[in-house]
């Protein structure tokens, strides 16, 4: 089963993703896409490590190239988070690269190996602000990635202040 969990900031996406995986007894993997640079990243990583120790997830740091993440067949996997992965893949040495095919094929590969895959993505498209051309390209890229994931995902769940809303398939948890 492949589930995309989307939504805004602090709306319970991670918690929902973990709940989906916590039910399972197979080995649990967490593919972390955050680039561990800066105060904010350190804050996020510290919080995540605490959760992982408690729940016995194997963490794979993967700021780029998720296709190479070593995921055993039949495991349960969370990929968090696509917005960061996209930024890491897209803005390299002052250049702007296309990322959609690379990210989507990487996720499909993981999805083929995992018994359960939960992909967490941040919805960044609805603040109505006109940013720089580079940032608008990023928003566009994220929109396309989300649509491509939706095409192969069984479930697409939007978290609204922690309330799961099924946009495709069904919300498996209340």
């Amino acid at each position, binding site marked *: 089963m492949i589930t995309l969990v989307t939504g805004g*900031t602090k709306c319970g996406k991670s918690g929902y993703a973990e709940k989906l995986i916590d039910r399972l007894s197979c080995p649990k993997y967490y593919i972390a896409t955050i680039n561990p640079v800066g105060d904010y990243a350190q804050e996020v990583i510290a919080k995540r490590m605490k959760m992982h120790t408690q729940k016995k997830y194997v963490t794979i740091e993967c700021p780029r190239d998720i296709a190479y993440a070593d995921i055993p067949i039949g495991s349960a996997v969370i990929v968090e988070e696509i917005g960061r992965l996209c930024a890491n893949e897209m803005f390299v040495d002052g250049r702007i690269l296309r990322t959609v095919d690379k990210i989507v094929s990487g996720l499909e590969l993981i999805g083929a190996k995992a018994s359960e895959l939960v992909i967490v993505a941040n919805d960044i498209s*609805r603040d109505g602000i006109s940013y720089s051309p580079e940032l608008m390209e990023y928003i566009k890229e994220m929109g396309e990635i989300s649509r491509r994931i939706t095409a192969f995902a069984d479930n697409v769940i939007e978290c*609204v202040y922690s309330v799961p809303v099924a946009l495709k398939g069904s919300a498996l948890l209340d």
Partner: protein
Amino acid sequence: MIMVTGGAYQGKLDFVCRHFGLESSDIANGSTCDFEEAFSAKCIKSYHRFIARLIAHGVDCVQFTERLCAENKDAIIILDEIGCGIIPVEKAERKRREITGKCGCIIAKNSDDVIRVTCGLPVYIKGGNQ
């Protein structure tokens, strides 16, 4: 408790007044009301702005919101969905969005009904006529 959310200017307040038969005197304005008013108001609108004011006054918003949910159980809380955008560069603004998200989750958890209004159309995403 009932939570009404959605984007800015989507008809949340109109829906609340119409559906729950409230008058303007029943509604505390989160942009201007006294903080204590929250504990007795029938309805608070713009709770996301209320949160911004709490932060500016150094109040613990999570604690305040938990107290609100415990003491004003029948309240209708209206707050905008504000988190669906690019993460702000400025730390204070980033924190405000995050705290608003956390408080929104607390209100949703304590609400029997959560209604999202888009283009004037109410959709029950928790409880109600879902």
